């Protein structure tokens, strides 16, 4: 009895050290991930002379909304924002319209072509024609430099298809459809009146994945769009953040001299990071559990 208490006492000391190490690691991880995000927020509303000399570290100093003022005056950002909202909403709706019914079909065990079709979908993950043939195809189809190139091509993401199919397989057993079909229920009806209402969770997950992908899409604009009126937000962001074309009139795009203009340019950059990511960051805490769920379902069947 005594020996055991000693042993357990000793063990708990080791355990305490272990728990302490875990706690320290967690705090470190928290700081490393969260601080850069926090810093962008405080830097975007601080006096840029203080930011650029490294004096803003924990709290905003010399409150200034100059950057946000410039952003609201910039018509490029408004155009980009409007385009991206349009592409995101239309694109996501089209994605769902194609992906969900297809996933439903592929989840039905009595549908005999499901294996071969699934293989043909999954094959595209590992092998593709490559950039150049795809680009030529888009040109031949006259999709380049139109808004459709953001919406129609690649409307079915195979990962999302797999997630939805796996969910339908589990949550809509064969017996459920069979008993409904005895009462004269067709697949269309079953899908619309039973499958969809039972699958709100998975529809949200997939809609959110598509939404984020459209919002963050930079590649399509870069490759297929050359007119400024059609460019999405991410291309405008590239011009501002990376090509240093901060002010639309060209004035004050101070180059890399690090001069006075550059400091103001940096404040615009901090602000623009916030403004462009805001829609996602606002909804993020509320939908985080849905995102997580998607990965969980997807991992059941890779």
């Amino acid at each position, binding site marked *: 009895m005594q020996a055991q208490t000693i042993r357990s006492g000793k*063990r708990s000391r080791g*355990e305490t050290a272990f*728990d302490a190490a*875990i706690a320290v690691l*967690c705090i470190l*991880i*928290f700081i490393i*991930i*969260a601080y*850069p*995000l926090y810093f962008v927020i405080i*830097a975007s509303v601080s006096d840029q002379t203080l930011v650029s*000399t*490294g004096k803003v570290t924990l709290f905003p100093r010399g409150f200034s909304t100059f950057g946000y003022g410039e952003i609201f005056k910039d018509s490029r950002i408004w155009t980009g924002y409007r385009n991206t909202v349009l592409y995101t909403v239309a694109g996501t709706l089209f994605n769902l*319209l*194609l992906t969900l*019914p297809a996933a439903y*079909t592929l989840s039905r065990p009595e*549908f*005999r072509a499901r294996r071969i*079709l699934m293989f*043909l*979908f999954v094959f*595209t993950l590992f*092998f593709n*024609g*490559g*950039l*150049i*043939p*795809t*680009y*030529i*195809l888009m*040109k*031949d189809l006259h999709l380049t430099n139109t808004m459709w190139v953001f919406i129609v*091509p*690649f*409307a*079915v993401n195979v990962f999302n*298809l797999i997630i939805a199919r796996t969910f339908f397989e589990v949550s809509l057993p064969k017996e459920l459809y069979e008993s409904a079909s005895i009462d004269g229920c067709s*697949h269309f009806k079953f899908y619309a009146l039973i499958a969809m209402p039972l699958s709100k969770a998975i529809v949200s997950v997939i809609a959110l994945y598509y939404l984020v992908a459209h919002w*963050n899409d*930079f*590649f399509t604009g870069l*490759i297929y769009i050359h007119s400024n009126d059609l460019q999405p937000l991410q291309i405008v*962001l590239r011009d501002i*953040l*990376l090509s240093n074309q901060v002010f639309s009139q060209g004035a004050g795009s101070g180059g890399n001299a*690090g001069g006075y203009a*550059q*400091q103001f340019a*940096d404040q615009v*950059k901090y602000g623009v*990071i916030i403004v462009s990511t805001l829609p*996602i960051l606002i909804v993020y*805490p509320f939908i985080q559990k849905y995102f*997580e769920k998607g990965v969980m379902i997807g*991992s059941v069947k*890779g």
Partner: protein
Amino acid sequence: MSSRTHKPANRALSELRRDYQLWLMVLPAIAVVFLFNYVPMYGIQLAFRDFDFSKGLTGGEWRGLHYFSQFIHSYQFGDLMKNTFFISLATIVLGFPAPILLALILNQVKWVRAKKFLQTIVYMPHFISIVVMVGLLNVLLSPNTGIVGHLISSIGHTDLNLLASTRSFVPVFVLSDIWQHVGWNSIIYLAALSTVDPSLYDAAKMDGANKWKTMLHVDIPALVPTIIILFILSMGNVLSTGFEKVFLMQNSLNLPVSEVISTYVYKIGIVSNQFSYSAAIGLFNTFINFVFLYTMNWIAKRNSDISLW
């Protein structure tokens, strides 16, 4: 009534009649995937032909392996291969274990609210766009005005510009990638850990194993199947370092180490319109990826019975 006695053709027909609604539901998806994923595969032949503007994907005169040999003998070939492999391998070697470690750490946190809060924070950077991510690096690492830039010069590296040096390109690329995706990539491992049979933990406790030993002998073995599958998949992408991030991080100063196959294909093909040559380079890239995927899968199958196919 009994469909078993019917001829196969009749059976197929009656099945089609039964399933026509299912077919209608999957057809739009098939059409889009066929048009945008399979038709370009037909265009792969461009890599073996001259490009002809009037003929599009069908291509012009047959050139065989001409464009491949042009690429292999070009003076950029060595650098492109070296850069592409180096960036991918660095990303895998450092980036692959990071989410596993994070999941093991998070799994030890028993205070549920703290754990949830930490998860919310670490998943967040995943949703930042690549443009914003690189923009973030630019403003934070800038040697004159960035906060990390100040930190670097304050510890004595005044001449180091993290954004424009051939030495720092790969570390910045890889570490920022880990920062952005480590949380998100840990979800799948956390899911695997949550399925561990609780009786294994009880058994470990009975045997006098401490938390550290439990982690080594219960948690890590539980992750092995997931680790193997994800590792095979990541090896299959060894030559496809995400085009966008490398492209956006490129500047004239780091170009010697940052020009990779995908950015080169873009410049040669889309910017300079050398379609056949860049299609050949792209195909070469796809082929090597496929070989890697296949080899890794073969090794895994032989040694562990876990494989993709």
